[in-house]
C-alpha cells in the first residue's frame, strides 16, 4: 500500500513535470505566434519563425507526453477530464493544426504567405486561450458521477476560466517577447523590450487576479493558502514572485540579453507551484485524488523504468539541438 501511495505521488510529479516542460518549451513559441500581428514586416516574421523552426516540434512533443502519460498513469482522470474539457481541447487541437503546418507552408507560397501568417498567429492564440480556459475549468472542478464526467458540454465556460485563458495568453506572450530579446538584435529586439514591459505588468495583474479569485472557488483552496500551518508553507510563493519580478524589472531596465527570458520562466514556475499547492492531492479537484485515479502498480512501474532511463537522454539531445542552433538569428541569412 505504501508503495502504491508513493508511486501515485511520483507519477503526479512526473505528469506535472511533463506539463511544465511543455509550458516552458512551447509557451514561448506560442507567444511568438501571438506577437506576429505586432510585427507586420516580412523580414521580422522570417526571423521570428526561424528562431523556433528547428525546435518547435520537439517542444510540442511534451504535450503528447503529458496527455499520453495522464492516460497511462491516471486513466480515470484522463477519462473524466477530457470529455469535461471537450470544447477547449478540440479548439486547442485545431489551433495547433493551423499553427504547426504554417511552419512549413508559409515558405512554400508567396501568394498565400499572409494567410499562413494569420493561421500561425490565430492558431497560436486559439491554442493558448484553450489551454488557459482548460486550466481554469479544471481548477473550478467538474461534475463527476461514478467513473464518468456527468456535466454538460458548456460547463467549462465561466468568468473564472476566461480569466485564466486571458492570463495564459498574456503569460505566453511575455515568454515570446523575452525569447525575442534573447534571439534577435537591432530594431526587432528594441521592440521586444518595449513589449516586455507592458506584458510584464499585465502578467502581474493577471497573476494577482487569478490568485484572488482561486480561494473563492471553494473552501479547500482557501484553507490551503490561508489556514495555519499551510500559510507558512505557501507564503514563500508570493514572496518569491515579488523577488523575481524585481529582478525582471531590473534586467529589462539594464537591457540584459538572456536574463529576462529565464526570469519570465521563473515567474511561470512559481505560478505553477501555486497551482500545485492548491490542487494536491486531487487530480480532478474535489472529486478524484491521484490515488483513486492511479493505474495499477505494474503499469506505473513499467513506465517509470522508461521515464527514468529515457527522459535524461531526451533532455540531453534536446539540449544538443538547442545548442546547435544557439545564438542570434539574423534576417536573410538563416542561422549564425
Amino acid at each position, binding site marked *: 500500500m505504501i508503495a502504491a501511495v508513493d508511486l501515485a505521488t511520483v507519477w503526479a510529479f512526473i505528469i506535472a513535470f511533463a506539463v511544465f516542460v511543455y509550458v516552458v518549451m512551447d509557451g514561448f513559441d506560442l507567444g511568438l505566434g501571438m506577437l506576429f500581428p505586432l510585427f507586420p514586416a516580412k523580414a521580422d516574421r522570417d526571423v521570428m519563425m526561424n528562431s523556433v523552426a528547428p*525546435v518547435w516540434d520537439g517542444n510540442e512533443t511534451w504535450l503528447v507526453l503529458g496527455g499520453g502519460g495522464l492516460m497511462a498513469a491516471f*486513466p*480515470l482522470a484522463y477519462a473524466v477530464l477530457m470529455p469535461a474539457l471537450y470544447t477547449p481541447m*478540440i479548439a486547442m*487541437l485545431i489551433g495547433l493544426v*493551423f499553427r504547426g503546418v504554417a511552419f512549413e507552408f508559409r515558405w512554400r507560397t508567396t501568394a498565400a504567405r499572409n494567410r499562413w501568417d494569420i493561421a500561425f498567429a490565430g492558431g497560436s492564440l486559439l491554442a493558448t486561450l484553450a489551454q488557459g480556459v482548460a486550466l481554469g475549468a479544471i481548477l473550478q472542478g467538474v461534475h463527476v458521477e461514478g467513473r464518468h464526467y456527468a456535466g454538460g458540454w458548456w460547463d467549462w465556460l465561466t468568468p473564472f476560466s476566461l480569466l485564466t485563458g486571458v492570463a495564459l495568453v498574456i503569460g505566453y506572450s511575455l515568454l515570446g517577447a523575452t525569447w525575442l530579446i534573447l534571439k534577435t538584435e537591432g530594431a526587432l529586439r528594441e521592440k521586444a523590450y518595449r513589449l516586455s514591459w507592458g506584458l510584464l505588468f499585465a502578467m502581474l495583474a493577471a497573476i494577482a487576479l487569478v490568485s484572488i479569485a482561486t480561494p473563492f472557488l471553494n473552501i479547500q483552496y482557501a484553507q490551503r493558502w490561508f489556514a495555519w500551518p499551510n500559510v507558512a508553507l505557501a507564503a514563500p510563493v508570493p514572496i518569491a514572485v515579488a523577488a523575481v519580478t524585481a529582478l525582471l524589472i531590473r534586467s529589462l531596465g539594464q537591457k540584459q540579453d538572456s536574463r529576462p527570458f529565464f526570469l519570465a520562466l521563473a515567474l511561470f514556475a512559481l505560478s505553477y507551484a501555486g497551482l500545485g499547492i492548491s490542487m494536491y492531492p486531487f487530480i480532478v479537484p474535489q472529486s478524484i485524488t491521484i490515488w483513486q485515479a492511479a493505474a495499477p502498480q*505494474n503499469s506505473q512501474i513499467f513506465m517509470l523504468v522508461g521515464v527514468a532511463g529515457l527522459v535524461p537522454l531526451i533532455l540531453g*539531445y534536446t539540449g544538443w539541438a538547442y545548442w546547435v542552433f544557439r545564438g542570434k538569428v539574423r534576417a536573410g541569412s538563416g542561422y549564425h
Partner: protein
Amino acid sequence: MLSNLDPIVLARAQFAFTMSFHIVFPAFSIGLASYLAVLEALWLWTGREVFLNLFHYWLKIFAIAFGMGVVSGIVMSYQFGTNWSVFADKTGPVIGPLMAYEVLTAFFLEAGFLGVMLFGLERVGPRLHFVATLMVAIGTLISAFWILSANSWMQTPAGYAINPDGQFVVADWFKVIFNPSFPYRLVHMVLAAYLTTSLVVGAVGAYHLLRDPHLAGPRVMFSMAMWMAALIAPIQILAGDQHGLNTLEHQPAKVMAMEGHYQSHKDGAPLILFGLPDQEAGRVDYAIEIPKLSSLILKHSLDAPLAGLDTVPRENWPPVAITFWSFRIMVALGFLIFALGLFSLWTRWRGTLFDSRPLHIFALTMGPAGFIAVLAGWITTETGRQPFTVYGLLRTADAVSPLAAPAVGSSLLAFVVVYFIVFAAGAIYILRLMAASPHHGEEGPRGDMPARAAGITPASGVAGQGAPS
C-alpha cells in the same frame, strides 16, 4: 439536426475521418525517412552530387509531410480521451504505457533530430548530420513498433486480467506487447510504408523521365524506386497471406467478412471474387466464385471445411460489405504493384528502363496506389474488428464518451473543414515541389533563405564530382 444523430455513429465517423487523414502521413514518412537515410549514406559513400541533390529534393517534401503527420497525430493522441473516454479508462493501464513508450522512444527522437536534419547540415557537418537523419528514420520505425503493438493488442488481446473496476490490467507485459497478431501486422505495415514511398518516388521519377529521359536525378530515383517495388511487392503478398492466416486463427469473423462467407462450407469454400453482400439477408448477391479456392488459400487444402458467419451470433457480425470491398481494393492494388515491379525488371533486363513510355505511364498512374491500399487495408482490419474495440471483450458502443450528439457533431464538422483546408494546401505544395525536377545544387528546406554559415563552404559545394543532375 445534429441532435437526431447517434453520438456513437458521430464519434466513429470522427475517429475514422481523422485517422484516415492521419495514416497516410506516417505511411509516407516511414518510407521516406529511410529513403533519405539511404540517399545521404550513398552521398557520403560515393561523393556523387546527384545523391545530395535527391536528398535535398525529397527532404523538402518530407518536411511538409512530416509536419502534417505531426499535427494530425496530436489530434489522434487526444481523441481517445475526448471521444472514447470509457475506452481510455478501461484500457488505459494496458494501452496507455504502450503509447507513452511511443512518445518516449520515438516521437522525441524524431522531433529532437528533425531540426538538425532539416536545417543543420552546414552547422554540424555531413557525418553528424547523417546521424540525425538516421535517428529520424529509426524513430519512425520505433513509432510503428509501439502503435502497431497497441493496435494489435486491441485486435488480439493477450496477457491481461480484468480488475474490479472493469479495467484491463496487465498480467504479462511481454504477452501484451508481442500479442499474437503483432509481428504480422508490424511487418505488413512497414512493408506497406516502403511500398507506398517507392510508388510515390517512382511516379515522380517517371513524370520527369516522360519529359526528358536523360535527367540524372529522375533516372536514379526511378531506378531505386522500381528495385524497391520489384523486391518488396512479392514479399508483401507473402506477408499479407501469413497475416490473413493469423487473422483466421484469432479473428475468424473478420476473415468471414473479408471473404463474404455468410454460410459455412463443409467441403471446400469457394473464393468469391465479386458480389454484393446483403447484410440483412445474410448472403452475397450476384457472386462470381471460384470453387474451393478460399479453402485452398486459407487452409491450404481444397476440401477443408470453412465456417461462415452463420456460426457467429448476429450481434457480433462485422459490417460485411465495407470489409469485403476494402479488402478487394487492397489485394487488387497489391497485385498491380507486383505487376509494376515485374514490368520494371523486364525493361531493366532489356535495357529500356529509362525509355519505356508504357512503364513510365504505368508507374505514374500507380503513384497514389500505395496510399489507397494502406487506407483500404486499414479499413479492412478496423471495420472487420467491429462491433468491438477490444476484440471480443469491449464493444465499441460501450467505449464512447458520455457526450451529447451536438458536441461530437460540431467537432466533427470543424475537423472536416479544417482538414480539407490544411491538407489540401499541403497536397498542393507537395505536388508543386514534385513538379519541379531535382536540379544541380538543389537546396534543402527554406530555399528562399539559404542557411549558410558565414565563411563555411556549404557541403553541397564541396562534393560535386558526380554527373550533373
